[in-house]
């Protein structure tokens, strides 16, 4: 039970981040390497704006990062024709954000007090109350995003632009406007993730960056443009990370996490296994 709660909590974090980065990737076809550094901004807001209640801190940071996200998206648009160029810009933006945080707040990690103290027992497992609350909030938000993506007009447009931006443009959507909205929406999810989970993290300039690799792995394992598979992949990555940590020491678990995930990536690239995967998918289509 402990393990399930830990997976739920980890999934809340990775799920928000992965779905956010997947939205950006769907609309812009760019892996946003600064994505998790936006989460770091959210975490710092929660750590430093101690004058107001926790909930208001989250709202404030969400509101103030919108102009920043719009600005970054404008930067990206300049080098949009060259996919690698846009990628490098996000790398530069991430680096700049980390350095700004270091210059402003220093490199020492900070702790954030949880707004809800105490612990609760769920099905016999004891855990901090805030952890449970923020996991539930995060998972709910992930669910809401999926509902928006698959049940609303905006979600349909997003999936259309992800699939074929030129065609979507001809059908009357403005791809540029959608890209801005998607970038802001995806970035806000990351900011929210950082702010919500700040009490469970040691907040430092590299907080966001340490989340980038698992998020990126989850994105790589999902189908481009499909948010549902992104959420699923995030669940898989969180389960793997948590399980390894329960069985092994932290250092070994982290190392093994990379090894396992790189192993899966290697296996997926082998033609025989790829064929097996397509074959099983075909089988699934037929039986459906």
């Amino acid at each position, binding site marked *: 039970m402990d393990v399930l709660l830990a997976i739920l909590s980890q999934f809340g974090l990775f799920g928000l981040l992965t779905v956010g980065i997947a939205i950006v990737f769907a609309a812009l076809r760019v*892996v946003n*390497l600064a994505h998790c550094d936006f989460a770091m901004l959210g975490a710092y807001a929660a750590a430093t704006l101690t004058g107001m209640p926790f909930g208001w801190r989250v709202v404030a940071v969400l509101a103030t990062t919108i102009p920043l996200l719009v600005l970054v998206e404008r*930067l990206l648009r*300049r*080098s949009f024709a*060259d*996919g*690698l*160029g846009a*990628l*490098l*810009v996000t*790398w*530069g*933006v991430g*680096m*700049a954000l980390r*350095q*700004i945080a*270091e*210059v402003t707040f220093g490199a020492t990690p900070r702790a954030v007090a949880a707004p809800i103290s105490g612990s609760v027992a769920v099905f016999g497992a004891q855990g901090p109350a805030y952890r449970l609350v923020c996991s539930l909030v995060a998972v709910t938000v992930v669910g809401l995003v999926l509902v928006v993506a698959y049940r609303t007009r905006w979600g349909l447009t997003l999936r259309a632009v992800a699939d074929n931006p030129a065609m979507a443009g001809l059908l009357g959507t403005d791809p540029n406007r959608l890209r801005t909205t998607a970038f802001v929406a995806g970035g806000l999810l990351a900011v929210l993730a950082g702010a919500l989970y700040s009490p469970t993290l040691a907040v430092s300039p*590299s907080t966001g*960056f340490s989340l*980038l*690799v698992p998020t*990126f*792995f989850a*994105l*790589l394992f999902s189908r481009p443009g499909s948010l549902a598979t992104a959420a699923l992949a995030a669940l898989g990555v969180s389960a793997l990370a948590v399980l390894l940590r329960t069985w092994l020491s932290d*250092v070994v678990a*982290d*190392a093994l996490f*990379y*090894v396992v*995930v*790189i192993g899966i*990536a*290697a296996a997926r*690239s*082998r033609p025989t296994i790829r064929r097996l995967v397509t074959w099983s998918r*075909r089988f699934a*289509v*037929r039986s459906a």
Partner: protein
Amino acid sequence: MRGAVFFAVPAVLLAAAPFGLSAFTLAVLTLGLTYGLFAYGLDLAWGRAGMLSIGHAAFFGLGAYAVALAEKHQWPLAVALLSALVAGAMIALVIARIGLASAVPDAPLILLTLGVGLLLQKAATSFTPVTGGPNGLTVSDPGVVTTYYRTLVVAAVVVGLGSWLVRSRFGAQLIAAARNPERAEQTGIDTVRVRTIAFVVSATVSTIAGTLYAPVAGLVSPPVFGLALSTSVLVWLAVGGRESVLGPFLAAVVLTAGQQLIGSSWQSWYLLGLAAVFILVVQVLPGGVAGAVRGWLRRGRAAVTLPRVRHRPRVVSATDEPALVLQGISKSFGPVRVLDGVDLTVTPGRCVCLIGPNGAGKSTLLAVVAGQLAADAGTLRLFGRDAAALPVHARVRLGLGRMFQIPSVIAELSPADNIRLARLGAPAEIELPEAYQDLAADDNTVAGSLALADRRRLELAMVLSGAPRLVLLDEPAAGLGPDDARRLVSALRDVIANTGCAMLVVEHDMDIVRGLADDVAALHHGRVIAHGSMDEVVADAAVRQAYLGAS
């Protein structure tokens, strides 16, 4: 000659540097040189092979730790260096193979290089008894001047070998493979192999740079694998300019000197400034300083030129076998059966046109023959050899040539270089027909700026330069006006008459089919329903049924 002067002046200045500089300045210059070599190594991957790595410090760190560990544990230095080089090369090999298995290798490459760097950093931090943990290991320094000359000599030798490599036949193949893998495969280049080798060489050069770094720095600690260094080397290379030798070295030396001068309390600000410069360069000056200079020197002409490499003729055994024999070729996409047992034979010197309604499977069949798609069942023989399992470039080396529906040439090279590239992979040197001589002599434009009809002409000239024995064409007249189309048909007939090669053409326009075809094969629902002369096929009841629905 001008190139020699270009390199001789810096070489003399560098050799004389210890006589005019203070010990501190010389140490900074040495550090700049090792970083420059590191950036030069990254250039082989990011610049020359088009494979972006944002964790290249992983390889650099391996080299640095090899030197430090050998000193700490009294291991023989040669063994430690060799193991670091082998380990770096193996890691690079695995990363490159995984990355290149996907059509767009950028994201997997970034992730894997990042992951390996973080993993090694963690390992170096955790295994304290061996690596000294977070504090790292100290390395002794034999003296500023000795270290400087050692660094200079090793860097010069490595750069010399690297320059020889990129000017060789391999370099020519790499230029094509990094820019247009599809067309490169069609000139017989194994693009995955070429790019993998480039990535491994890049990792090796970076490892060597790391071994030079250890004595210069005096201390090797986990951040040597880290993000800051990986990012810095990206910045040096981006600012200095890719596909250049002097650019990355200059940028590394200048920026390293800047970092040393600015003092440790301002390091965060320095890195912030570096990030801003990086964003600015990527957006405004994608080619870096070297790219800007090159663009100014070579106004309007191609910025990239193919190294002049001698052609090596290859022996291809002549056969009397048919050029192409297909038996029972089937191919399904999910539940849709696109090809359903195709039998077809093309004999040398014949032009077979494939006709059929939309969705009959014509383009799929062409892709199966070319090797882009693998058939689910059936046998495929090219010139008497079983070719069903051969990759695209191996089929090209058997004598297959291919033109695409949208002409595919290497847009950054001049037309003449495109043709030179095609000749590199050819079994024999072929004299191009008169009509293509203008393209073969054109070194002053880039192929990407040609008009559609000229680009198609260039693609055909490239295919012909490869001395093919079977040419596949997918709607060669699509998008051409009637005059251009007629000219193309007569050019193709001339090719068949002069070289005796066979052709398999997908075409919709019946006038062109009539002008071109010796035989016509009609495809419907993934099967050949009629095969014979134009008149026979047109008169065939099944064909009329398929096209018109009439009986």
